[in-house]
């Protein structure tokens, strides 16, 4: 089986984009990915449009996105896996090209969230869990992650200060990312004194809803070698699922089995170990999630994720720099775009184009993207 390459990436500004519609956001990312790949639309033979469609005013947005990008009548369809939609889109593109059904695929991750009223957003969040057995008690997205946080705190002595370190680190890097929603550092005191959302999580432990898009252009190794002298290779893709209901999950809820399973597949496929990873993008939907991710991805032993933060090992210059683009906590979380945004940042790192945020000698990058309340997790490993 031939290898699959990423030959172009594009990213819109994330944030409260009251100037732009869903299709226009998709165009920004798509057009900059074509420029990056030095291609025209005629070279693209299919699109995979990734969004959590329950947030979109437009039903089945692939239709209108493909039309606006000038890709009709080429095949298009939507991929939905909540917050992991575009990481799953990458998996679909890999399969479409590996099977030789297609040669050049555009994965377009996009979400328009801020034009929904806060009531509509809260109503949607309320149905993020199992609607038969859990939503009827008033669940929310933060509530689920807060339950993991309390379990981790009780078992390992993790503190609110430990969690705040994630936000402080990521916001420091977000301040240097012109595409981020929040481009301002934040202090430990500001995080710790922010209002409670679902205890122990506070406002600044949480990422924000945002509008935005990111686009990846993928092709076969034969085509990639003709197109570019700086391909980035998809070395491993892992995807797993977990029971959606919290009651269906086993163990003390101090880790996400779903991420461990996805990581195992991706590491095996790429033939790398956690210690081989030079730079990582992990799903920091909440500060606690980043700590659990360190452990689930094998960067730290169970319960020792907080130590990586205290010893600055996940900072630029550390053993395994994580979320050096600011993460979801700084960039905002336009749900369908986040997975492709993580991959875009890794591609810049592996092509040594990350400027002030460049990790020296980065050759292997890993992106991890959780869907919803942890029912999906995707791990993607890229090589320069």
């Amino acid at each position: 089986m031939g290898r699959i390459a990423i030959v172009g990436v594009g990213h819109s500004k994330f944030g409260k984009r009251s100037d732009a519609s869903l299709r226009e956001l998709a165009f920004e990312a798509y057009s900059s990915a074509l420029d990056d790949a030095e291609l025209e639309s005629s070279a693209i033979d299919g699109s995979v449009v990734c969004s959590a469609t329950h947030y979109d005013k437009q039903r089945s947005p692939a239709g209108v996105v493909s039309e606006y990008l000038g890709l009709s009548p080429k095949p298009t369809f939507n991929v939905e896996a909540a917050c992991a939609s575009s990481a799953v889109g990458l998996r679909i593109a890999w399969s479409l090209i590996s099977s030789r059904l297609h040669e050049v695929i555009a994965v377009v991750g996009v979400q328009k969230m801020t034009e929904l009223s806060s009531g509509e957003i809260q109503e949607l969040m309320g149905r993020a869990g199992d609607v038969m057995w859990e939503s009827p008690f008033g669940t929310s997205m933060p509530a689920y992650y807060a339950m993991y946080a309390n379990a981790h705190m009780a078992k390992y002595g993790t503190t609110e200060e430990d969690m705040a370190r994630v936000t402080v680190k990521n916001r420091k890097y977000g301040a240097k990312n012109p595409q981020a929603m929040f481009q301002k550092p934040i202090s430990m005191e500001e995080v710790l004194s922010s209002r409670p959302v679902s205890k122990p999580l506070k406002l600044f432990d949480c990422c924000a809803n945002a509008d935005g898009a990111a686009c990846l252009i993928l092709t076969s190794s034969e085509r990639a070698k003709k197109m570019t002298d700086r391909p980035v290779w998809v070395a491993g893709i892992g995807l797993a699922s977990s029971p959606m209901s919290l009651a269906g999950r086993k163990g003390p809820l101090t880790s996400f089995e779903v991420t461990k399973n996805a990581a195992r597949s991706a590491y095996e496929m790429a033939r790398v170990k956690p210690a081989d990873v030079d730079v990582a993008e992990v799903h920091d939907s909440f500060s606690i999630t980043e700590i659990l991710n360190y452990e689930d991805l094998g960067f730290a032993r169970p319960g020792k994720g907080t130590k990586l933060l205290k010893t600055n090992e996940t900072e630029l210059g550390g053993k395994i720099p994580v979320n050096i683009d600011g993460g979801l906590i700084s960039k905002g979380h336009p749900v369908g775009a986040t997975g492709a945004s993580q991959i875009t940042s890794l591609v810049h790192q592996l092509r040594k184009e990350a400027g002030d945020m460049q990790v020296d000698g980065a050759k292997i990058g890993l992106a991890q993207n959780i869907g919803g309340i942890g029912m999906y997790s995707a791990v993607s490993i890229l090589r320069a």
Partner: protein
Amino acid sequence: MGFEKFGRFGYVSQTKIAPLVSYLEKNQIMATKCKECGTLCFPPRADCPKCRGSNIAWVPIEGKGKLVTFTEVYFAPPAFQDSTPYLLGLAELQRGMRVFAPISNEVDRKDLKPGLELVLRPKQAGEGVFYQLESR
């Protein structure tokens, strides 16, 4: 029909296991048991996850359990905003069965930690009927 009464605010009305609601109204917490292989399920299931049998019996379960984890919700969906802050918990019952449920406001927040012994009891509030975790 009928299942919309389950919980503080129901989203689903139609299911094969709607009888749970009438049992709760009679102050009983019931699980389903597969008549083919004996697998016990809580929350109830119309279809056995082990043998795919769809011939089930309702059986009472004991509510004693231990807290696995919990949270106190401040930012709530619209239907719940009048009752913030409120507690949610995950508890382990007999034979490894787990339940996601509200924790009674009467439980002292200072006592909340994994391992805390609680009991699941039926509860009626307004039009709704459900179960909640209470002090033993």
